[in-house]
């Protein structure tokens, strides 16, 4: 099968890859670009473990074709920390022990970051609704929600 050449931007850097039309963006990230931070949980858009930003919008990369990334900007979990410095959300997830096995964590972090970008003072209920598309079978969600609320609080006071 002939492959399609795709030029895109990933975490701010230009990237090019060849893929078959049936491959998802998640397949491409993991298998062709070695960006294995995004996880495949369900592959049908239910669990959110593959969450990425596509042109500034939170999406499941398992529900995007790789060829659709042509000319667009993709942000993944690999772009979240700056070198050795963790993003505040990553730091808070550690402090609150908001993870156990870690498979859902990249998706939660990408989704939570997207929330705080549009709302720096979310209520607990807003956090829970926003993250309803991210499933975790270990933590029971409480620690995750608290970590997100705590990060939002810190980010607000840092700005004040």
């Amino acid at each position, binding site marked *: 099968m002939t492959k399609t050449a795709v030029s895109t931007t990933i975490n701010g850097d230009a990237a090019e890859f060849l893929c078959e*039309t049936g491959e*998802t963006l998640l397949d491409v990230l993991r298998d062709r670009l070695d960006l294995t931070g995004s996880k495949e949980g369900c592959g049908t*858009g239910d669990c959110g473990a593959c969450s990425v930003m596509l042109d500034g919008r939170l999406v499941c990369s*398992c529900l995007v074709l790789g060829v659709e990334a042509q000319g667009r900007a993709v942000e993944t979990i690999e772009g979240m920390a700056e070198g050795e410095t963790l993003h505040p959300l990553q730091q808070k997830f550690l402090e609150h022990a908001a993870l156990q096995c870690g498979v859902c964590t990249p998706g939660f972090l990408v989704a939570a970051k997207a929330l705080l970008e549009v709302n720096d003072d979310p209520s607990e209920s807003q956090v829970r609704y926003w993250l309803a598309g991210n499933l975790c079978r270990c933590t029971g969600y409480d620690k995750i929600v608290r970590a997100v609320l705590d990060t939002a609080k810190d980010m607000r006071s840092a700005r004040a």
Partner: protein
Amino acid sequence: MRYEAPATAKAAAKLLLGAKGSAKILAGGTDLLVQLRSGMKPPGLVVDIKHIAAMSGIKKERGGFRIGAAVPSAVMGENKGLGKAWPGVVEATGLIGSTQIQGRATMAGNLCNASPAADSVPALAAAGAVARIAGPGKRRDIPAEKIATGPGKTSLKKGELVESIFLPKRPPRSGDAYLRFIPRTEMDIAAASAGVNLTLDRKGVCTAARVALGAVGPRVILSAKAAKALIGTRLEDSALEGFAAACSAAATPIDDKRGTKEFKTHVAGVLARRAAVIAYERAGGKP
């Protein structure tokens, strides 16, 4: 599987018409990619409509709103004017899936996927929404409720695709609402649903109404009889009782894992009644 991303609706229609095997339209992909994954034979051609300018925005037109077929739900939810004019339609579309799904899923896709339980469809039918169909010939406009003909089936001919959905200008003192019942609290498929759109006169008497039921038949049910039960009333308790009974009588659900026939029949009436009260209050009626 060939992938094409044409720049015009004409070009998309030409591609679809010329396809040798099966062809699928890709908007948000939240149904198509799941179907591909669940073992559907891959189509020979996928036509991505997100590069078509006429399908990619929300425009005001003759006092109403024209929503492009490639506009994701999240963008609808962020449009304050649209939310103010048609809150029921925007809320119905906003109920579909998670934040991630909202970033991709489109109302036109929801319509053309032709699921009997599609959340936006009863709201669109109640709203009197009109779908604009592009194809090899001239564009044509048809009522949104005429798109789906049964589960997974549409009235669109080969080479045709929905270009946009038009929500008309509403008279003063109008309101709409959509409610659904799901077994969980979030992110589930409707067991029964109802969309109500009504207009009041200065005294708060209902002068026009459209009522649509979802998930209680192979396609959306637009009930003129139920609407009649509201017209001429101020939605007093007795009127609402008759209205709920008319909605239950119009429902033709099946038994499945989401509920029994009896349950869905009853709940369709309950939801319609509650939606009617919300629509009434949105129209400025006093409870």
